[in-house]
């Protein structure tokens, strides 16, 4: 029996075990929505309030569940509204399949109503994209799309389907894609590289690991833990690596990078071996490359050959999925410990505690700090929650202080730094891991970039806990203005609406805390609630996040104040 291209699209999704789609309908994708109508039992569609929200929700879903997020949008403005989320997914390696409707094929190129060249526009920010003009292409192209999105280093793909192809009738036959001849998702390493890595690891006196999201994407948390426990090597994380190793693990030495911890940043320039594990030496991590780990030998465990030697030249590259490469290394390396070297980190932790952390977490001043809010959340969730952050000071503070017991728990926009990410991403994260507590930590600026997704949260009933840390400023930009632009606060002060009333307008329980005495209880109440909840906390307006490596500075010159 023949079916329409639209129905074929839905059937492909079912073949790929998709049970959730985030999207927004419109003229050019209406046939697909009509087909979806007949499959409501098999696949749930979440109607967002803006297509950008659909992409971030799909990202949150992908990052909490490990499955690709799926997005639908119509042609023209629907499709262009996806761009920020696609770019974010590309730079943070999030598997996502976007399906956009397109004007009928005979109209392509004619500036038809709601026609945009979405394939052209999305090319530099997708792992792969394709325009379908004939229904018969649907099964093979979608199979390929899912395979590419998920395999190797994951990423977003976009498939644009003309309206006539959605109507056209075909015989449906689906075959999952397992290979594309021009594409090598997982490069391999020779014995020579593995042995060279083992040799460097065995010889190192002061080794340091910096791990990134590669550990999580490769689902190699266990393999990673076995490796560090056998070798006794201190392990620091990038913002996207956070939660791959429990924060309380004795070998976890904290965060590297611009607002990372004092110890791992400074000691990057004192270690004799730096082991980069599924991370890509982003400039926010390395600071000035000419003064980055020059004294150290470097081993890079990496799935994407384009990342090797891109920013930092390495001595040994172990290519491949660390889930496979790391156990081979662990087996061969000597059991070891680096007690004295580890003490160097703990010494610096103590300095950081005295100068920064104590007054962040246990302030004596009247105004509340972002740090103490995160601390209060930790106390309540005991490190079991998924924390979704937006972009800015609150993000850095949350990543610095949030406690995590399990992986896939820290969801943030790292590479692109997309304000507006957190609210929709938290919704997606909750739907991807419904049994887990999901707490979104958002600034008063970024919150207002996708605030309309409160509507989606209300409509789905997803029990997301939303915390807005309100400092009445675009805080991170204000901090830079204070430190580097002589306090000229150009357009960073915000006059905000009554956030609690807005939440209530969406029938979401809301509370505002402006005194320390109310914090603990409000957090407790929020976490204990089984419904979506909103909590606004008024924090000190002009607090700064420290430590900080100013742009272009060396990691050694990290400022504590």
């Amino acid at each position, binding site marked *: 029996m023949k079916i329409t291209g639209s129905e074929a699209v839905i059937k492909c999704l079912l073949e790929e075990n998709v049970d959730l789609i985030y999207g927004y309908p419109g003229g050019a994708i209406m046939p697909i929505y009509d087909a979806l109508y007949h499959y409501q039992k098999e696949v749930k569609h979440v109607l967002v309030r803006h297509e950008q929200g659909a992409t971030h929700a799909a990202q949150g879903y992908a990052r909490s569940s490990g499955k690709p997020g799926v997005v639908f949008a119509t042609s023209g403005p629907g499709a262009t509204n996806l761009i920020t989320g696609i770019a974010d997914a590309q730079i943070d390696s999030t598997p996502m399949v976007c399906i956009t409707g397109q004007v009928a094929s005979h109209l392509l190129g004619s500036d038809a109503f709601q026609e945009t060249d979405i*394939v*052209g526009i999305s*090319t*530099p920010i997708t*792992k*792969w*994209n*394709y*325009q379908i003009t004939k229904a018969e292409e649907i099964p093979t192209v979608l199979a390929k799309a899912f395979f*590419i999105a998920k395999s190797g280093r994951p990423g977003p793909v976009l498939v644009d389907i003309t309206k006539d192809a959605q109507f056209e009738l075909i015989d449906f036959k689906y075959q999952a894609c397992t*290979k*594309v*001849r*021009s*594409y*090598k998702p997982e490069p391999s390493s020779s014995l020579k590289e593995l042995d060279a890595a083992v040799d460097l690891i065995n010889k190192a006196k002061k080794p340091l690991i910096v791990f990134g999201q590669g550990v999580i994407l490769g689902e190699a948390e266990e393999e990673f833990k076995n490796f560090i426990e056998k070798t006794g090597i201190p392990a620091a994380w990038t913002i996207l690596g956070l939660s791959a190793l429990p924060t309380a693990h004795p070998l976890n030495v904290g965060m590297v990078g611009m607002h990372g911890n004092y110890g791992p940043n400074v000691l990057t320039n004192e270690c004799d071996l730096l082991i980069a594990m599924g991370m890509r030496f982003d400039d926010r991590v390395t600071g000035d490359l000419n003064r980055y780990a020059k004294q150290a030998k470097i081993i890079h465990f990496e799935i*994407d*050959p*384009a990342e*090797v*030697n*891109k920013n930092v030249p390495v001595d040994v590259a172990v290519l491949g999925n660390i889930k496979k490469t790391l156990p081979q290394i662990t087996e061969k390396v000597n059991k070891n410990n680096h007690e004295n070297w580890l003490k160097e980190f703990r010494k610096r932790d103590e300095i950081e505690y005295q100068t920064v952390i104590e007054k962040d977490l246990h302030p004596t001043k009247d105004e509340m700090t972002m740090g103490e809010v995160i601390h209060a959340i930790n106390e309540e969730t005991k490190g079991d929650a998924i924390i979704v952050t937006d972009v800015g000071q609150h993000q850095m503070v949350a990543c610095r202080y949030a406690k995590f017991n399990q992986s896939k728990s820290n969801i943030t926009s790292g590479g692109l730094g997309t304000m507006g990410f957190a609210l929709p991403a938290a919704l997606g994260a909750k739907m991807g891991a419904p049994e887990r507590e999901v707490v979104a930590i958002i600034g008063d600026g970024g919150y207002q970039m996708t605030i309309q997704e409160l509507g989606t949260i209300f409509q789905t009933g997803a029990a997301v806990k939303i915390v807005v840390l309100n400092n009445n400023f675009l805080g991170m930009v204000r901090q830079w203005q204070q430190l580097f632009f002589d306090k000229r606060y150009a357009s960073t002060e915000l006059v905000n609406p009554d956030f609690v009333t807005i939440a209530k307008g969406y029938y979401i329980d809301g509370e505002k805390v402006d005194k320390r005495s109310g914090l603990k209880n409000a957090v407790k109440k929020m976490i204990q609630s089984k419904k979506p909840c909103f909590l606004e906390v008024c924090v000190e307006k002009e607090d700064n996040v420290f430590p900080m490596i100013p742009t272009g500075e060396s990691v050694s010159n990290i400022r504590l104040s």
Partner: protein
Amino acid sequence: MKKVKKFTVSIYTENNLGLLNRISAIFLKRHLSIDSINSSPCEIEDIFRFVIVLKTEEELIKKVITQLEKQVEVIAAFYHTDVETIFQESALYKVKTEALFQKKKVHTIIKNSHASIVMVSPEYFVIEKTGKREETEKLYTDLAPFGILQFVRSGRISVTKEPMRITEILEKNK
């Protein structure tokens, strides 16, 4: 100072709509300007070969190569210097036919430069010359006094002295 050199990039790809866009985006992203670009089928069925010439630093071109290879439909990419390749460009010169009769010298120029006349009409004639850049440029200067009505030069095409082993790569990924 880093050394800027001329490189020929060869990219083997699937024959896919939009791939040119994807490839050029990688150069654009790094603010690299392309001197010439050529695309044609290659010795393997259904596989295309782009030949792109540009001037940049070797360190950078290495990174561009890995980023090109990362694209799903790129099979392999390479870079070479001039000495590692055999390369040619083609040029066409459209000249007023008068020149042929008025000045005998034109014949000598064409003959000496190993160019050929591809067509002659009462109004104009067309000369074709394949060779290195210096050769097509020299012919241009030599013909200029006779009035060149139109001039066009193709992008570089090149083959490498070393084998490319694309079939082997394809076999491996099968």
